[in-house]
């Protein structure tokens, strides 16, 4: 893996809310094209880490470089325009919109036709709309959600919502895809489907994936490398096999007191 180019590197990042430290001095990197997992017990700072990566939280210390560009503070939409997409732990779909509109909303950055043409939904604006509809239909086909294309997402079962959310992230054609517990609350069959999608995304589109997941089995099967966090500290980093045999990780997961 080490021969791969680094896409994102996190160096010495610390984040706290008031007096509470959520992340202390964590460093790791994500290589281009890999599937990288972040695991750890509840409250380990995993989601905060994703929030830092896509600019939603601003770390007090440390730096992040993406695609070779260093940055300290950046706005979430800037992260998005640089090609970072994500899904959320508690599905954050646009509840009042249909599946198709949710996925089309993911194309926001790719659509540029002016307000003028939008007003008349004519000419360039209409062409653009149809072109992107085609693109979204491909994603819909890929995720096998054709039958719920026009359904309001608020009424869909949880598993499908997660899939739509993945679709919305994919619509951004991201370089780096952050998945926050993509399989939480799913049954075995749904998990298998989701795993298949993740691997397909990684292999077909070459998208780099960073994911948080609690199901250790799935994580071990899916990921190329794993970071383990506990109480905001990094306790391990390596391939699934390395992590599996790490004593600190075993202690953390079995709850051995330090």
């Amino acid at each position, binding site marked *: 893996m080490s021969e791969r180019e680094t896409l994102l590197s996190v160096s010495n990042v610390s984040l706290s*809310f008031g007096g509470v430290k959520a992340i202390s001095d964590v460093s790791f990197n994500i290589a281009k094209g890999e599937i990288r997992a972040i695991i750890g017990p509840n409250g380990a700072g995993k989601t905060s880490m994703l*929030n830092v990566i896509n600019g939603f939280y601003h770390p007090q210390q440390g730096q992040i470089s993406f695609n070779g560009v260093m940055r300290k503070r950046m706005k979430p939409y800037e992260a998005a325009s640089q090609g970072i997409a994500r899904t959320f732990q508690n599905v954050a779909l646009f509840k009042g919109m249909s599946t198709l509109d949710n996925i089309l909303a993911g194309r926001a950055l790719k659509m540029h036709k002016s307000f003028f043409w939008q007003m008349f939904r004519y000419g360039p604006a209409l062409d653009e709309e149809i072109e992107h509809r085609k693109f979204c239909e491909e994603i819909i086909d890929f995720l096998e959600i054709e039958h719920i294309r026009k359904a309001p997402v608020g009424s869909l079962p949880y598993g499908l919502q997660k899939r739509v959310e993945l679709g919305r992230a994919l619509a951004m054609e991201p370089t780096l895809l952050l998945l926050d517990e993509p399989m939480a609350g799913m049954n075995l069959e749904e998990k298998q489907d989701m795993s298949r999608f993740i691997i397909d995304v990684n292999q077909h589109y070459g998208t780099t994936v960073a994911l948080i997941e609690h199901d250790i089995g799935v994580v071990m099967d899916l990921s190329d490398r794993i970071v383990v966090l506990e109480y905001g500290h990094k306790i391990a980093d390596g391939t699934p096999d390395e992590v599996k045999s790490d004593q600190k990780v075993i202690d953390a997961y079995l709850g051995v007191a330090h």
Partner: protein
Amino acid sequence: MMHLLYQIFIDPFVQMAGAPDLLVQTLWEGFVGGMLYALIALGFVLIFKASGVFNFAQGIMMVFAALTMVGLYEKGVPAPLALLLAIGVMYLLAVAVERLILRPLVNQPDIMLFMATFGLTYVLIGVGELIFGGSPKEVPTAQLGLPKGAYDIHAFGGLVSLQKIDIAAALIASIMVAALAVFFQKTRIGRALRAVADDHQAALSVGISLNQIWVIVWFTAGVVALATGIMWGARSDVSFSLQVIALKALPVLILGGFTSVPGAIVGGLIIGIGEKLGEFYWGPLVGGGIDSWLAYAIALAFLLFKPEGLFGEKIIERI
């Protein structure tokens, strides 16, 4: 230009120092007005805390409650009895609101409940005017045992005149706030109320009847509304145009945070005193009458620095 700057930044303070009696009087008027705003806001906070409803009808409840009391008095009912009957009417109103609005709309988005209280406002305006007519009514202050006249204090190089009715209003407001605080902290129902405010589900699971709580809260807010209506009515008249003044409770609430009782008080005082000072010292610069919007501008200015209000809980956004 210099002259303008002088008029805005220096002259008002020169005036304040030059006539301290007027300054004290202005502060007092602002204080009394602020207390009354705070009382309206308080009724609102009670309801918001316990049922999460942004109760637009609080203003009309104030008018309706006072109108019931005064209307009954005008129809020949002795004043103390009319007061009791008005309290009874507010209880019936609370029951009706719980049955007809809150129960069917439980778990709907906040904005729907907000809208429902709009509907309630219309119904109360209609019912109130139908029964008691639209003319302004006088509050029988003497019969209610409220004082008349003023204490004239010769101090601060002049005269400060404190209306007894205003002092009574401030006292009653303080007593009500204190009573509510005791009620919240010390009684079983009060504790239940706080439990509901914190978490509906949790309250339900320890066997507190939400419906009962709602009735109590709306009733309490109704009594607060009655007191406010009478005090304000005694200063001018009980009429439907008082309802517009009740809108001033909105900046108070926003300033104080929707859920904070001390916030409502402090917010009320800031708005009350701020708008009186503004109108008195700065209003003449632009021809006066700025108190119609000054309160909102003050609240807006505060909000830009503290977007969750002075006493609201700090919002940490999570995803």
